[in-house]
């Protein structure tokens, strides 16, 4: 394992120091491990708070700022934040209009956010939760942990953040996030595994001629292995996997996110985007907006995820709304 770190134990604290130094426009509470918009709580504005394990940067800290998140709570690498962080974030951002959590659907995240919400309720602060569960690699069922939250988180945070910035109520902010989530489906392919610093070795082994289909963003192996193929064929497999679980059909418009998992060159992501765009055109689906790059990463994993959001006028309006964050800017 070769990583630009000081020690596996200090990864999060050292990264927070860097985020604080790099983004004077943000407030980083290094003790509480919370990244905040500068300026304290905004009276009358709903606070949108997200969080999750570290290792997915720019998610979530990179989306803190006007038009998106009020606070991000990064956990240890690939580990959800603890309730204390979320409570600190609530206290630092609650402007009296309520709080909306954006939570990716993982047992750990769900439980920690839930405990925080229960504790906040004891303080008289009502917290609503938007659960992100877009990953079609996992079958949705009430008997299992359900679909995971992955790339759609960006779309959800953008939509919820836009409504909050526009003065929406907590119910409206949560509804916008839920709308974005419901309209989104994702699927990821790994070419190489991620190495968690504390573990010191790759999460799985992958032969030179194989890929992991349906991989998770925490180094979880995927549902199955398949032979490595041309970008065109991998893209087709991914598009088909998503469309099989999506209401998107000919004539629809979509927001497309071709997302790098951390170690994939942008050059390759553009190649994938070109293939995805051709495949969607063949199916009569129009790309209304797009994003290509590293947005929801998985440490040093190589590969990509595709997120397709079925876009109506409302979602496009929220997607286009102004935002000023380290990783996403809209005029």
């Amino acid at each position, binding site marked *: 394992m070769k990583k630009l770190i000081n020690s*596996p134990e200090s990864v999060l604290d050292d990264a927070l120091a860097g985020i604080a130094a790099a983004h004077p426009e943000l407030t980083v509470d290094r003790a509480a491990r919370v990244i905040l918009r500068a300026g304290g709580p905004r009276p009358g504005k709903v606070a949108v708070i997200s969080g999750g*394990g570290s290792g997915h940067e720019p998610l979530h800290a990179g989306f803190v700022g006007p038009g998106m998140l009020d606070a991000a709570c990064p*956990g*240890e*690498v*690939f*580990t*959800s*934040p*603890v*309730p*204390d962080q979320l409570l600190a974030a609530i206290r630092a951002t609650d402007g009296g209009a309520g709080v909306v959590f954006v939570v990716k659907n*993982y*047992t*750990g995240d769900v*439980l*920690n956010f*839930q*405990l925080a919400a229960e504790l906040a309720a004891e303080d008289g602060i009502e917290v609503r939760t938007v659960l992100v569960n877009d990953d079609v*690699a*996992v*079958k949705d069922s009430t*008997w*299992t*942990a359900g679909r*995971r939250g992955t790339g759609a988180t960006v779309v959800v945070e953008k939509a919820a953040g836009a409504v909050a910035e526009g003065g929406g109520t907590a119910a409206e902010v949560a509804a916008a996030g839920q709308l974005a989530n419901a309209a989104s489906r994702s699927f990821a392919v790994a070419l190489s595994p991620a190495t*968690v610093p*504390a*573990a010191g*070795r790759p*999460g*799985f082994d992958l032969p030179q001629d194989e890929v992991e289909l349906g991989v*998770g963003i*925490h*180094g*979880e*192996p995927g*549902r*199955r292995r398949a032979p490595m193929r041309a970008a065109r064929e991998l893209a087709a497999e991914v598009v088909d996997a998503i469309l099989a679980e999506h209401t998107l059909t000919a004539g629809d418009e979509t927001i497309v996110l071709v997302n790098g998992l951390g170690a994939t060159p942008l050059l390759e992501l553009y190649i994938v985007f070109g293939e995805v765009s051709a495949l969607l055109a063949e199916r009569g689906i129009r790309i209304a907006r797009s994003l290509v790059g590293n947005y929801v990463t998985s440490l040093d994993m190589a590969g990509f995820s595709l997120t397709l959001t079925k876009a109506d006028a409302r979602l496009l309006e929220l997607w286009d709304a102004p935002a000023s964050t380290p990783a996403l800017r809209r005029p």
Partner: protein
Amino acid sequence: MDTALALGWLHATAAAVEQHEPELTALDSAIGDGDHGSNLRRGFTAVLAAVDALPPDTPVGAVLGKAGTTLISTVGGACGPLYGSALRTTGAALPTPKADITDLAAALRAGLSTIQRLGGAVPGDKTMVDAFEPAVAALERAAFDGFSLREAAALAAEAAERGARDTVPLEARKGRASYLGPRSIGHQDPGATSTALLFRALARTAGA
């Protein structure tokens, strides 16, 4: 179970987690995300610091409660809230200053209920419940049969270890391993494994 035994148990658990961290990491890498070992190590390091700073006359229930709160505050992930809340519930259910085996079994049953309420897992889902449930059941039986704490804890540890081993052939239905579907078969659940460490530490502390 009294304050001294609770402190001893927590120390023994911390030592076991430290020693078995690589194993827990390897198990979680195979069917999860590779952080179960470091999660628990971070948590129990904090637990020792917290409970060792308590006044010596702290009641046993409060010691376990403090341990639970500390796990919740420092671990994150699935196991932080689950173990943390379970310890809090267990602590809250223990009579002061000293609990007999029946009390302890009932308190741990309450802790297990919290895990199941929060996580929704039932035995057979390939989670910590698969070790926790048989351990508690063994304690309950041992209490009914009038065994000593030493004997009862040893039986609970054996049951937990068996339960952990028995997760190997299961297909996971809860937690991160469930994403693997049938590919989760053939691997031992990391959380069930750490639960077995917890009960083995109790047995050691009780003198077994």
